[in-house]
């Protein structure tokens, strides 16, 4: 390949990547931008790209809607579910990776298979069941569902990481008198911290963004942000300003997180899923 051909390839690569990046970012940019537009500007056709920003939508959002309590709900539910699934998942992953368990392969396959179940299948009876035992529309009910939802992923990814740790390190420690449990605490855990963190973060994002489960299992009390976002589309018509402000609130934590931890996410996800 001669130099000219190479140059062309390089330039076209950049151009294509830039175009794709713009397509990827545009919706997010537009949503955030609209949230800063005064009401009369939102509907302007042709759309205005340069304008004076205003916080009036956010003001309305935070004072007139339930956003604050929903935000708190999303946070509580997300954090607690993540903690539960990470703790239980890491323990289980360690077992699967290192210890002898009866019919291990079958159990592991079953755990992975739970990810194949369409959630609607679980949610209809779960809805009836929660209603019967009083867990409907409670934080704990949603947390229970989300934890179960995230466990297979945590177990699967953590197991892949733990398996990669060389056995010699653990054997040395055990020869020196460390128990299995000690190995877990002092060696496995510290070594897999980054993976644990990435998996936990991913679980939190999944909980934060989740919609169908929250929609079915809540009505007033435990409502999360995504469900609230839908309520902006009402019979009165769409309240664009507040809606995009609400949408921005939903996406801001995740975007910040991705920007900061992009490298780890890429590594963690691809490694966990490909092994």
């Amino acid at each position: 390949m001669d130099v000219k051909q190479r140059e062309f390839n390089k330039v076209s690569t950049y151009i294509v990547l830039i175009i794709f990046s713009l397509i990827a970012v545009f919706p997010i940019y537009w949503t955030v931008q609209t949230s800063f537009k005064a009401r009369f500007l939102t509907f302007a056709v042709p759309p205005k790209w340069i304008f004076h920003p205003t916080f009036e939508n956010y003001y309305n959002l935070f004072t007139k809607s339930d956003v604050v309590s929903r935000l708190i709900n999303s946070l509580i539910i997300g954090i607690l579910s993540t903690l539960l699934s990470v703790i239980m998942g890491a323990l289980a992953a360690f077992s699967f990776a290192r210890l002898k368990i009866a019919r291990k392969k079958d159990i592991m396959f079953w755990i992975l298979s739970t990810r194949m179940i369409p959630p609607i299948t679980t949610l209809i009876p779960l809805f009836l069941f929660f209603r019967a035992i009083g867990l409907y529309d409670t934080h704990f009910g949603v947390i229970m569902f989300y934890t179960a939802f995230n466990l297979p992923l945590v177990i699967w990814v953590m197991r892949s990481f733990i398996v990669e740790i060389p056995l010699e390190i653990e054997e040395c420690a055990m020869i020196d008198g460390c128990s299995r449990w000690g190995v877990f605490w002092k060696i496995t855990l510290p070594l897999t911290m980054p993976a644990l963190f990435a998996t936990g973060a991913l679980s939190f994002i999944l909980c934060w963004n989740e919609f169908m489960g929250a929609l079915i299992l809540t009505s007033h009390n435990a409502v999360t942000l995504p469900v609230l976002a839908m309520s902006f589309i009402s019979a009165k018509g769409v309240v664009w300003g507040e809606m995009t402000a609400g949408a921005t609130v939903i996406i801001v934590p995740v975007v910040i997180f991705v920007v900061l931890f992009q490298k780890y996410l890429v590594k963690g996800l691809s490694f966990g899923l490909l092994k």
Partner: protein
Amino acid sequence: MSKEKYLGLFLVLPALSWLVFINLFPFVQTLRLSFYQWVLTKPWERKFVGLNNYIKIFLDPLFLDSLKITAIYVGCVLSAELILGLYIAVLLNRPIFGRGLFLTLLLLPMVISPVVVGLFFRCMTSPDFGLLNYYLQKLGLYQLVLSEGMMGRASTALLTVILMDIWEWTPFVFLLFLAGLRGLPNEPFEAAELDGASRWQRFKYITLPLLKPVILVVVLFRTMDAYRVFDTIWLIGKGGPGHATSTLSIHIYRTAFYYWDIGTSTAMSYIMLIIAIIFSVILLKYLYETVRF
């Protein structure tokens, strides 16, 4: 050491029991409920009907339509994302400046809440205020849009929803492909280049076969996720207009929580589950045979 055996079981027990409670138990319940005729608004009419619900749903044109819509959706979305994702991964694998920036930007669609994605596309395609309509008009593609917007007509609605999925999930695909490409050994490529193979030949005869396991994993994950899509489609138009974008999840959800028909909806969701299992088993088997675990 028996102690070790107990430790293993003990550590796994919390996770396992949690999963059994939330997943297995409802799983069994769904099957049981599907044998009853039960509408929540008329509880006095609840009775055991055996396989009646299953016969009923296979005669129901809406259910069959949902099956068809879901099949089209998964097929289109999967092929488009595989090709596009691979292309982007190949591009990002080249030595370029600002790869980190590109990665961050290109990853964003998949971490944005599906709710926001659905809302955004709803705004975009709105006949009155949507940007898409305005610019399509300017480009002279008014036929595509007319007065109802892209989501207003059955023919364009499914297309819109498919495009939405492609926008949202291609990042996932290219992420996996990128990781796969990075993991490929250099020697085959160098040898081929020495032998005079062209870029396309190298891609076709070396890259693709070596990427087979990754492709399978991508197909597995994307198929499972596209099959059960709900959030985005619900928010862009609740499965409308009419029944045009009502995939299985949407149709089942509506039957269960709008019409409160527990018997029919559980029967449908069980069929949905069985189809999912069949596909997953086939794909997983193929994956296990291709990759040495």
